[in-house]
């Protein structure tokens, strides 16, 4: 009896200590975010004459303003960068999921020669850094552009019937959205296939077999049975991929150069100190709105996906 009592008191002591430790860590973790948030609402004189923490400790002496936001949005193409980022991120999320879902379905429910080997290769590819393929893929796109550019210049008759085709702006892929979609899709593929296949393994095989007996084709089963049942895994991978693409700098910088995305614009703002801290802060804040909303809105799915993928 006495032993359980001492254990309980020990636990209670531990609880106070835990709360204090956690509080300290949470404050530490919040400092950069709060610094950014506060600075985004200060005027230039305040931002340059005192640290952002003074605004927290003496909020009444501050000149609170939303000017940094209007300035950041007007002077830096942030709105058009926002649109570009959406145009990169949405297909770069939907396309790999669809491709990966089809492949995961094939790997889970159909049998074919070399299935295990193909899948082991995909597992191995999960860790290949994207830098490994970057230069040759860029050269591939550039080569494609010069080929299709020549084709358009030499045989305009082949293209003239196509609406919106303009010989002064020949078709090309380098620097355009589809280049980003392809690269993001290819690099997301191994992980996506792995996660979705792991999930589909838990679906009841008997159900799929029953549908087969009833005469459904594998294609129908995919759209009507497997996709609806896989929504949790699809959702968690979608969130993961969307955040990844939204926050990516490297692929956008190398492959989608004609449409500056938010990370690119933000980095170039960082290079221009004369703009002022408060404007950079407001710009950063603007780039964070979508990922943070997605993250908090769908955190449950995100966490579930993470834990399902790794804890097993």
């Amino acid at each position, binding site marked *: 009896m006495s032993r359980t009592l001492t254990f309980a008191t020990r636990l209670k002591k531990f609880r106070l200590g835990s709360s204090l430790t956690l509080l300290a860590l949470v404050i530490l973790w*919040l400092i950069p975010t709060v*610094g950014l948030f506060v600075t985004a609402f200060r005027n230039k004189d305040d931002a340059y004459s005192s640290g952002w923490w003074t605004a927290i400790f003496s909020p009444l002496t501050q000149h609170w303003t939303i000017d940094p936001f209007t300035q950041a949005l007007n002077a830096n193409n942030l709105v058009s960068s926002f649109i570009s980022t959406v145009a990169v991120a949405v297909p770069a999320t939907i396309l790999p999921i669809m491709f990966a879902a089809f*492949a995961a379905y094939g790997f889970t429910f159909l049998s074919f020669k070399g299935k295990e080997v193909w899948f082991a290769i995909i597992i191995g590819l999960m860790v290949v850094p994207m830098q490994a393929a970057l230069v*040759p893929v860029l050269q591939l796109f550039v080569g494609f552009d010069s080929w299709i550019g020549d084709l358009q210049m030499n045989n305009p008759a082949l293209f003239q019937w196509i609406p919106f085709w303009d010989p002064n702006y020949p078709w090309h892929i380098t620097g355009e959205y589809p280049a980003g979609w392809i690269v993001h899709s290819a690099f997301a593929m191994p992980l996506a296939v792995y996660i979705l296949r792991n999930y589909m393994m838990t679906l009841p095989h008997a159900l799929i077999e029953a549908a087969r007996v009833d005469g459904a084709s594998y294609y129908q089963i995919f759209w009507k049975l497997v996709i609806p049942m896989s929504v949790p895994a699809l959702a968690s991978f979608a969130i993961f991929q969307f955040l990844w693409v939204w*926050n990516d700098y490297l692929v956008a910088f190398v492959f989608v150069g004609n449409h500056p995305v938010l990370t690119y614009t933000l980095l170039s703002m960082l290079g221009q100190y004369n703009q002022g801290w408060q404007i950079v802060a407001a710009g950063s804040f603007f780039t964070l709105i979508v*990922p943070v909303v997605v993250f908090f809105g769908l955190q449950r799915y995100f966490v579930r996906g993470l834990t399902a993928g790794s*804890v097993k």
Partner: protein
Amino acid sequence: MDQQPDIFSYLPDLVFALSAIGIGVLASIFLYWLLNFLVNLFPRRVASALQPYAFIAPVLALVGGFLVWPTIQTIYLSFTTTDPDTGEQKFSGFDNFNSLFGDTDFLSTLFNNLLWILVVPAASVVLGLLIATVSNNVGPIREKVAKSIIFLPMAISFVAASTMWRFLYNYDAGNVQVGLLNAIVTGLGGNAVPWMQITNFKLNDLLLMVIVIWLNTGFSMVLLSAAIKAVPEETVEAAAIDGATGRQTFFKIVLPQIRATAVSVFITVLIGVMKIFDVVYAMTGGNFDTNVLGVAFIKNYFEFGDTGKASAIVVLLMLAIIPIMIYQVYSYRKQEELR
């Protein structure tokens, strides 16, 4: 762009983006429909043999064409140099590697990468474990709030994180310090320090690592917390009845049961850190002795136009990753045997 763009000036962008999204998605739905249609033109027996490939072929093509084949090309390119006259890549044996290893700047880049690998994954796992453990004892509401806050940086881009941390690391030549770290130093009577330029004890490098640890700890915490909650209550109670101290229970009972998760978190962070790029690029541009392979690669290719050397840097990175790759495949096979 003019100073006061109205909403209509964005319309072409928006229309283009939306139609690009629509066409991209419809085209790939059509691709699968077409593949399925083509397969079913064959006699039934052939069609059922081809069916799996209609599902996996696009992925194999995408991964083969944009991941595997380019990687092989990169390996080839690492053994070439650009001919200054023709601009073509000429085979040059190990020249790129020799000149990299003969360059003290590159050796310090390698050393920096090693430091990142040694510090960041371990620190992320240990901090994540600490937070997962203490948050398990504070009650559900506090736990939820604390975890959300520490997890939040997962949603933040490396570039945005770099802007945030500049509010901590900033150095001003004047009297007023608007960076928190320097305000503390001067508040304690010291002199303000240009943190990003202090190479003593690799201080600037370590400060960059703090940013990445800040970003990764939430991930580590979420996974380890789930693992800790999955530890059977009975094993912990049995230890308590046997008179184990809290510390003993943690190290002898809980830790062995979450080891697999800790290893997988460690490896995930490790892979991310090996190719670290954005944070260093945004904070120091690789200057002040903070260069890493990811930045050296980009600089060699885009700034110096040295395709061969850039490729050689990536090949070195891949060599370092191969052991992890083997481990991944090996642990997958073991996991499959357990199914």
